[in-house]
């Protein structure tokens, strides 16, 4: 049996080369493989392409939580439907990097998930009805099919996926918790190599076959988040307290 269990995040990302494309979902803190992202920052891998849902600025200390934005200095390209949100200062935080050559490919959430599916199923591309007559169509082929306009979209097939799961068994079978699922199941399917961090690693059989969301065949490495690691329940609770005291965050999250 191949061993998939790693005991260090640094080791788990050690062989990711410069230039790699990495799907690492993030809906702010949710669905974010924080420890793997932090390890990739430590490693300093350059010229990476980041594929994520939500690319927003860090408004708290990196010791408490990280999001894909901490990788900005290492990035060549960003594919995302969300670059900043007005309440947190909009896109200003990426402007310096764009000036220095960062390519930003804006997409829609639904289009990104379909592009990842296309990557997983080895499709060559598809005709998408969303974005017609918007900035999304710029530079893309358009086609009328059965009377409706479509835009040609290409698959996304990342070299790596960083996954934040809930439980994993040693075979790599994964569950998620609540809204942490995000696009991670399709990212794991589309990526050539998948690394997951999880709350808990259990024995095969402890996850019911019916409740596996990402089967282990899609998962190459797993690391259990240690006590005090980023994204543990305790850390998340502390972060909530911190955000509650930050005016724009409280306004956003508690309405």
């Amino acid at each position, binding site marked *: 049996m191949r061993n998939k269990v790693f005991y260090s995040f640094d080791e788990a990302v050690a062989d990711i080369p410069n230039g790699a494309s990495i799907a690492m979902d993030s809906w702010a803190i949710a669905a974010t493989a924080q420890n793997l992202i932090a390890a990739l920052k430590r490693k300093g891998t350059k010229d990476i392409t980041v594929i994520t849902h939500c690319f927003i600025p860090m408004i708290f200390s990196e010791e408490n939580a990280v999001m894909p934005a901490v990788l900005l200095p290492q990035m060549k390209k960003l594919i995302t*439907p969300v670059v900043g949100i007005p309440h947190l200062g909009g896109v200003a935080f990426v402007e310096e990097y764009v000036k220095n050559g960062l390519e930003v490919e804006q997409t829609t959430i639904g289009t990104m998930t379909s592009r990842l599916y296309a990557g997983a199923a080895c499709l060559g591309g598809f005709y998408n009805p969303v974005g017609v007559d918007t900035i999304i169509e710029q530079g893309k082929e358009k086609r009328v099919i059965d009377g409706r306009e479509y835009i040609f979209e290409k698959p996304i097939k990342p070299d790596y996926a960083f996954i934040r799961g809930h439980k994993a068994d040693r075979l790599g079978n994964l569950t998620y918790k609540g809204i942490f699922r995000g696009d991670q199941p399709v990212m794991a399917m589309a990526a050539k190599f998948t690394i997951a961090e999880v709350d808990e690693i259990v024995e095969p059989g402890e996850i019911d076959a019916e409740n596996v969301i990402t089967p282990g065949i899609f998962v190459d490495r797993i690391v259990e988040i240690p006590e005090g690691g980023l994204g543990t329940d305790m850390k998340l609770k502390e972060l909530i307290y911190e955000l509650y005291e930050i005016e724009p965050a409280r306004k956003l999250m508690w309405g």
Partner: protein
Amino acid sequence: MKPRLDRNGITKRAAQELKSGDYVNLGFGMPNLVADYADKGVIFQTENGAIGYGPLVPSTDKESADFHYHDALGRFWVPAPGMAVFDVLTSFAMIRGGRMIAVLGGLQVSEKGDLANWNTGGPQGGLIGGAMDLAFGAKKVIVTMGHTTKDGGPRILKKCTLPMTAKECVDLIVTDIAVIEVTLKGLVLKEVLPGWTPKEIQALTQPRLKLAPDLKEMEL
């Protein structure tokens, strides 16, 4: 100054469009207040992967907030019986498949129902998110917005001047002074806020408004 509805008033009126059993996605900004006023049987969906969840965590409560349970805008809610969580692939099949009503914020709506709501044209324009998918795919799109800009200019225009979200997608516009339906024959003024005449509303609206045969005053 004539009376205008505040955000609560606009969303209260928008909520009247929703009935028990409807599946509804609420967009960024004003629309997320709709949940407070809607029938208890309305089922809310959030595009980050949950449907049928419970009420929002009150603003005084940080204990109940859990990062595993919040909507696409980051607003915490509590789980409820009959809820389902799912991935984004499933979520956007829901959204694109014409099964949901979307209540979206608006910056501009054209007379054909084109919507601009994701980018003010300023430097903060990165938030496409799922708005284009929702505007395209929902079986009914209700837009809530102020009838005019801060400078008093119209938001309901012959053509949108801001970056487009989706064309010919809006079904109903609920503003702080009127309810307007988008039909194949043009915009139809259905309701006016008490204190306003159709003529006054037309003056703040660029395209020609038809008057509904059953034109009436808004009731909240």
